[in-house]
């Protein structure tokens, strides 16, 4: 592929591969944040950074949508689509790692926890986004429609989160992310941040590759 013929892209890919390998090694070897959960507890170190990355990517979809509608530059449409695709892959990972972590942690696969529920709803909206991209009509109009849906989806996030948070008060009794951080042991915090940064490197590589493919497709 011509993308990996460029030196900078190869370096980016190498860094992403190295960071991912270190990430996986640390996840497997680090002590679980909650010993009672065993090795499943370490999914926390994947689930949380993946969720942060997914939401960040969806925020980028909204920003790309706004820039596309105001500047009418096709570049922002391609970027928006790339952010949406990679963001949805990450969101899918959130929705799969969430239940895997939830079962040993809280005894049920789906706790209707606000963040997980918000993730599910956003995931569903973006499935609709891709259907719109595919069946929405002529490409020029669809680009605009997709930009609007991308903005609408992220505008909805605070309302969805607030609604779900106060919907079932008894659901708030499950452990919050903050409870895992013990100020005497900063290692989990550092690792979470490291994991998030490595996922940013991986996702940015995926986005650059996808944007490159979309540009080449358009040029042909």
């Amino acid at each position: 592929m011509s993308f990996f013929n460029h030196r900078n892209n190869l370096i980016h890919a190498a860094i992403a591969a190295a960071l991912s390998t270190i990430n996986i090694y640390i996840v497997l070897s680090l002590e679980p944040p909650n010993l009672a959960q065993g090795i499943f507890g370490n999914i926390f170190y994947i689930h949380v950074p993946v969720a942060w990355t997914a939401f960040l990517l969806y925020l980028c979809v909204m920003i790309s949508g706004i820039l596309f509608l105001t500047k009418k530059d096709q570049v922002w449409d391609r970027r928006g689509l790339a952010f949406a695709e990679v963001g949805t892959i990450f969101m899918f990972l959130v929705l799969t790692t969430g239940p895997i972590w939830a079962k040993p942690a809280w005894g049920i696969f789906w706790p209707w926890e606000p963040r997980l529920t918000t993730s599910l709803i956003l995931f569903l909206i973006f499935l609709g986004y891709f259907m719109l991209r595919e069946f929405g009509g002529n490409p020029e109009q669809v680009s605009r429609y997709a930009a609007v849906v991308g903005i609408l989806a992220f505008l909805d996030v605070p309302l969805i989160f607030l609604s779900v948070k106060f919907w079932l008060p008894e659901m708030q009794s499950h452990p919050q992310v903050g409870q895992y951080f013990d100020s005497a042991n900063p290692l989990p915090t550092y690792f979470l941040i490291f994991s998030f940064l490595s996922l940013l490197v991986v996702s940015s590589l995926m986005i650059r590759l996808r944007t490159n493919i979309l540009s080449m497709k358009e040029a042909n």
Partner: protein
Amino acid sequence: MNLQVTNLSKSFYHSPVFQSFSLKMESGEKIGLSGPNGSGKTTLLKMISGIMSIDSGKIRIGENDVNPDEPEPRKNLYYLGHSVGLYPGLTGYENLTFITGLYGKMNSNISNVLIKVRLDSAQDKLVKFYSQGMLQRLKLATAIILDPNILLLDEPLTGLDVDGIKLFESVIVEWNELRKTMIIVSHNSDWLRTNTDRIIELKQC
């Protein structure tokens, strides 16, 4: 009212239709647009009328730039398209009342104009039952009532009988005397040569 198009670009399905197209029309000028199918004649009229977005460039009507967020420039023009562009479930009279209301001309004498275009007997008929010729007459009636400074006529003679064509030509003469700016699209080059000041031939990109 003068009309100016500067460096207009537009693409469909990533294929360019217009690339840095420019056009300048003085007030009262009549231009004919001709060209093969797919050369962008209807697209140009739709972009000027605001129905279609532009990728880049500028369209200026009088002192105002055409901008989808600004309705003001659209007050001075009327687009007579070759699609129906009317509500099929309303009568001819109701469609005219609706459109003239949008332009702020609520007290217009619609009935008299319908008599002029010989549609008075069909004014209470639903538009979905109109023939092509009747639709063209109804759109002509709309243009007469709205009395805009700029007229964009997309194949205005399609479906008209001999009387209809004579009626249209007489109205164009009246508009000419009133110094209205007109862009007329037609495949009939002879007719355009007789009825316009100059002809622009569009080619496919």
